[in-house]
């Protein structure tokens, strides 16, 4: 019994201080209603738990009227069949009601964004942009208060898209397109992660979602759609080393699509699919040790690059804002 109470206390505490990848700090509509359901289920479970354990303790205790009543076969029918049937029927209907009221039923024309899972990063494409689709990676930006429809696909194995603060997860399955409709109530930065085991670096396949006011979002998207600045220092080294084989930097000959798009990589929160904070040193760290930081990732190692070349490429990446 004590344990149950402790559990409640713990949860109450956590709800206040949970991290950015937590179902407890819900700011998306679906997550908020699920959190409410979670509390209801938790409290209900605790009550049932107390009831049953209470009955068990009574049954083990001193003989008495209560014990006699518990020993009655009708008690088994009542506690084992009638009681669960009633409780479960209520719960079932409540959960169906929640399902029905999901954001997908809202009807308004949503903003479409495609997210493709790959081993082990995320390709993000803003489909509804006036100048044509804008590609980005490992970071999703969405306008607050608007309905956003994510089209979720996979390029290789099954991944699962999970931003607990906004909504439950949706699997990304080869050959299928799944949808997730989000409506976020407050601006902020939250973390998401792949939750379907997808091989090697599954644990290190994360991303950030940034919810921003609609006008800021529009401005950002316009910036994001623009090509990178030309002839930045280090661009030559970047191209000569062949980085463009896998990465795209719009406005340069780098047009590779096997790896994440890098046009504005320095303006993103993280590098390596949510693994390192975006800082100048971390670009260098990534170039030097990415196989240690994210074992098994598919970017080859360029062991033969000289320190100066690494420096130049890192400088270039830092400048890609």
């Amino acid at each position, binding site marked *: 019994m004590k344990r149950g109470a402790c559990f409640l206390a713990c949860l109450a505490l956590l709800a206040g201080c949970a991290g950015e990848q937590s179902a407890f700090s819900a700011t998306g509509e679906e997550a908020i209603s699920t959190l409410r359901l979670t509390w209801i289920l938790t409290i209900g479970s605790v009550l049932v738990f107390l009831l049953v354990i209470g009955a068990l303790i009574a049954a083990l205790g001193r003989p008495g009227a209560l014990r006699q009543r518990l020993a009655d076969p009708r008690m088994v029918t009542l506690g084992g069949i009638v009681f669960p049937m009633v409780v*479960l029927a209520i719960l*079932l209907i409540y959960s*169906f009601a929640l399902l*029905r009221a999901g954001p*997908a*039923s809202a009807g308004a024309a949503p903003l479409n964004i495609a997210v493709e899972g790959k081993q082990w990063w995320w390709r993000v494409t803003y489909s509804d942009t006036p100048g044509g689709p804008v590609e980005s990676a490992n970071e999703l930006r969405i306008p607050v208060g608007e309905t956003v429809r994510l089209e979720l696909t996979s390029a290789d194995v099954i991944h699962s898209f999970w931003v607990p603060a906004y909504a439950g997860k949706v699997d990304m399955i080869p050959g299928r397109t799944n949808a997730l*409709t989000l409506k976020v109530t407050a601006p902020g930065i939250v973390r998401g992660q792949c939750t379907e085991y997808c091989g090697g670096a599954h644990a290190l396949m994360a991303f950030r979602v940034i919810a921003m006011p609609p006008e800021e979002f529009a401005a950002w998207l316009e910036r994001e759609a623009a090509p990178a600045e030309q002839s930045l220092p280090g661009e030559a080294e970047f191209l000569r080393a062949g980085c463009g084989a896998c990465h795209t930097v719009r406005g340069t000959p780098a047009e590779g699509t096997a790896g994440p798009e890098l046009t504005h990589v320095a303006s993103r929160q993280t590098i390596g699919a949510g693994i390192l904070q975006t800082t100048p040193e971390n670009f260098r760290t990534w170039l030097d040790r990415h196989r240690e930081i994210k074992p098994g990732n598919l970017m080859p190692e360029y062991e033969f690059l000289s320190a100066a070349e690494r420096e130049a490429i890192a400088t270039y990446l830092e400048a890609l804002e």
Partner: protein
Amino acid sequence: MSEPARDTRFLRRTLTSLSGILIWAAHFGLVYGVQHVACREGAGWTGFVKPVIYLATVLAAALMGLVAAKARSWLAPDDPGAPDVSIFLRAVTHILLVLSLFGVLATTASAVLLPTCGALR
């Protein structure tokens, strides 16, 4: 030596005792199958799903009622002097019918409350 004693009507007794849960299984399979195929086939088919589910539910409930009414005679003992097994099997039959009916109704409730296709997200 005579022929060894045999359990007569083993299959009938087993099927009667399990009828509730078997009806649930058939209902469940039918309902899920119809809905799955219809949603895949798309337009023109989806309209049939709910009527089929309701019809199946009515049919299942009717069958369950029939079994409940007939269980006594279907499970009558071979040897009137040894009623234990029959009483037991009858109890099993009836309780299983109750649980299965709950299962069938829970399935139907989903159909009442939710749209036929669509992932709802």
